[in-house]
């Protein structure tokens, strides 16, 4: 019991860390509040830039961590520090004494209804990136027309937006929008697709190629300018008002479907749990790493480690790399 390791969160960060710990000979306890593992990624269809099936990754990880103690539909109610170890009270009534705790609590998806000017929850033809992925995974969605003539994508919904309370860039939405625009064009080749962006931040390997491909091979239109407002016409279609800041002209585009690229924001429940054990929060609400350059995995407390989007917005490969690093840190910490 002395060397228990608890991983909070069974998304890809928690799963990858569990896998690495198992390979190092440590059997972790994985606590996940949902009835299934995989977190946000599990509800995604394909991942950029190689169009990898998300379900493949999750299935592989699930197989790899079969040897861990996994509690599904369980959340951590309380953490308290006892000398060099931590006492975790779980919602299933079990109390665990852990030598090390890994926060892999991830992020929350921004609630697009908060940007009321885009009409999510008000107009019938407005969906989010997550809704589109769920639809592509086979879920029925009456908001998506059978054959849309025009589809719009709004970038940065709740990201880099002080009025929405989030100043951070969500990193993944630019490329996700490109990916989803391509997928829409694949399913509805006749549809015109417009992406409204303020910046395209295509920093990762092959992202820029992906962008060129979307324009050259799929004919997706990219319009630089934030959408100011969306209105509904009598026939249910939408009118998007934006400004094309490259040509300096105001634009009005009619679309049959509008996809809002909801960004990542901090997970408030993780913040509340962390604060109860005197872990520090950053100004953006995410957990504060000891150092943002070299000690992203470390917290201000010994024995508490971080992995993935709990410390800030991350892509899938970044999260996986951090999870591996955290597993090694924990292993070395337990050995010392």
């Amino acid at each position, binding site marked *: 019991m002395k060397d228990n390791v608890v991983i909070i969160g069974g998304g890809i960060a928690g799963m990858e860390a569990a896998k690495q710990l198992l390979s190092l000979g440590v059997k972790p306890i994985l606590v996940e509040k949902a009835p299934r593992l995989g977190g946000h990624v599990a509800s995604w269809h394909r991942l950029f830039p190689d169009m990898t099936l998300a379900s493949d990754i999750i299935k592989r990880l699930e197989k790899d961590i079969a040897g861990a103690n996994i509690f599904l539909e369980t959340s951590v109610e309380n953490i308290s520090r006892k000398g060099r170890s931590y006492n975790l009270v779980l919602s299933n009534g079990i109390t665990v004494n852990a030598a090390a705790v890994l926060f892999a609590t991830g992020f929350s998806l921004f609630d697009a209804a908060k940007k*009321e000017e885009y009409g999510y929850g008000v*107009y019938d033809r407005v969906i989010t990136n997550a809704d589109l992925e769920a639809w592509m995974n086979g879920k029925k969605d009456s908001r998506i027309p059978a054959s849309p003539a025009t589809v719009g994508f709004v970038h940065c919904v709740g990201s880099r937006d002080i009025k929405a309370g989030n100043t951070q860039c969500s990193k993944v939405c630019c490329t996700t929008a490109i990916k989803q625009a391509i997928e829409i064009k694949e399913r509805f080749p006749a549809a015109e697709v417009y992406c409204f962006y303020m910046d395209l931040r295509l920093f990762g390997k092959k992202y820029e190629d992906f962008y060129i491909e979307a324009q050259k091979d799929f004919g997706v239109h990219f319009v630089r300018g934030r959408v100011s407002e969306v*209105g509904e016409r009598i026939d249910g279609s939408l009118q998007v008002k934006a400004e094309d800041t490259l040509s300096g002209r105001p634009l*009005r585009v009619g679309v049959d479907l509008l996809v809002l690229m909801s960004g990542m924001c901090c997970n408030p429940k993780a913040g509340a749990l962390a604060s109860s054990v005197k872990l520090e929060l950053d100004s953006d609400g995410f957990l504060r790493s000891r150092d943002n350059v070299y000690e992203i995995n470390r917290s201000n407390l010994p024995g508490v480690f971080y992995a993935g989007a709990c410390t800030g917005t991350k892509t899938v490969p970044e999260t996986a790399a951090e999870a591996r690093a955290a597993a090694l840190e924990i292993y070395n910490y337990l050995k010392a």
Partner: protein
Amino acid sequence: MIDRIPSGFNPFVIPFLFGMAFVLGYCLFGAVRILLQLPREDRKKLYLSLITPTTIYKNIRDIFCDCLLHVRLWKRNPVLGYMHSSIAFGWFMLIVLGHVEVLLFVPHRINLFYYPIFFNYFVAEANQTLRGAFMFFLMDLFLLLVMSGIAIAMIKRVRSRIVGMRKTTRHSLINLIGMYSLWAIFPLRLLAECFTAHISGGSFLTIPGNWVFRSILGNDLNLLPTWWAYSIVLCIFMCVLPFSRYMHIPAEMMLIPLRNAGLKVRDSRKGFARVQVMSCPNCGVCLDACPMSVSRADVRDCTVYLMRQMRAGNERRIKEISEKCLLCGKCEAVCQEGVEGPKLRLLERAKTEYRLSPDYSDIYVAAPSGKVLYFSGCMSQLTPSVGRSVESVMRKAGVDFDWMDREGGICCGRPMFTAGRLEEARGMVRRNEELILASGADTLVVSCPICFKMFREEYSLPGVRVVHYLEYFDELIAEGRLTLEKSELCYVYHDPCELGRGSGIYDQPRRLLGRAAAIAEAPKARAESVCCGGSLGSLTLDFARREKMTRASLENLYASHADAIATACPLCLATFGRYSDRPVRDVAEIIDQQTKGNNIEL
């Protein structure tokens, strides 16, 4: 009672006479200057009002109630009301009774200006008369009244919270000199009358005082120096009066007739505005009222400091203060003098010159038509649920109407107007006027209070009734065209600045909400409502400061313990929505839900 000094003069009256001459000269000169600064038609209006019996009565009543008795202040804060009225009314009575004494006992001295002020020095009570004893009793009584007010003023200076003020103004040196000299006048007068009481006579304060001092000192050597000190302090007070906040005493007597004549401020510095600036007593009631005062750094941008900077002529600060304000109008609502802070700021803003001027003449908008038009405004485009709910309710009531800016319209002009860009605002106003008048409409329903105020005040729409949807829905219900079902939720209604203080609509939203749900009242509601912080009025306030204001405003609403917040302004809705811990709904949304008979999902 006999006249004691044959010449009826002593040199100690000279400082008093000098101060009096100075202050009277200054006020007379200032009043003439201000009258000349007024536009010709305003001046005519003023003169006419001064000979109209109803305004004469109103002027006298207002001067008596506001300047002497401070009736409005009594209603707001009884302790402060007592403090001000005891000093003002008590002092006034001392002067009046002084004249009565002179008329009664030494009528041949009435032409001497200073006699009523220094009466006790110049007379001797030969044999006790009932009349004399009664007058002396009254004089002591009113002196006591004034001194009790001064005592409260001293306490307020040290601990303003005791008299119910959280913040109080920081005074300049000249104000401090004025204040301390005012505080010194009455104790010195009491002292002087005490030293003289064995000669002149006195009453319950002065005679025992005289016994005590004479038994301790054993001589009258302090008699003349104290009268000198009294006169000198009066002189100091009157000499600093024109340059200190005490200028409000004479200025208010001019402000009341100007206001009662129905004049409007046309220039931010001259004429009527000048009288308002001079009338500000620096009391600081606006400090606690101002929503900006939640940030320490912004307290110095409240109206009282604008008045001070306008007197000092500090152009940089005047511009800064004028541009920062949210124009929520609360300082004006609580001001005892009726200083129009927001209006003066708007006039200041209009002085800024912009190099670029946008042109709206070629913007195309569809022409509306129909008897009833609905204008949702730009803000409602950002909160589409408001427009849709208004539309849905009107459809259910069977109103035949045209949503004139459904596909986009021309701005009502208020943002440009509040930025002081009056010409640009006029351009938009003219376009909208043409569209509305050409449509043949007789009713214009507006859902945004910001547009509503603009339509009501700056538009000329003959034959068209401009109503807010709250008024319109209220009428529809009264006509039996809408029936509401009551929800189990309890709402607290937030009065938007432009709708409440700006347009005086307080009852309709409460009546409507009361039919649709239970309502709770926030501690500060109606005219006291706290701005949400989102106002278009401010040109310079940053987001972090606005957030603080929004949270403070929400705290006031939370105190009602309601389940949800209701408002009738799309801007308040969006602003509260960002930080509120409970649902925020527009009244139109609630009415729409409750006319269907299903409960609102929160």
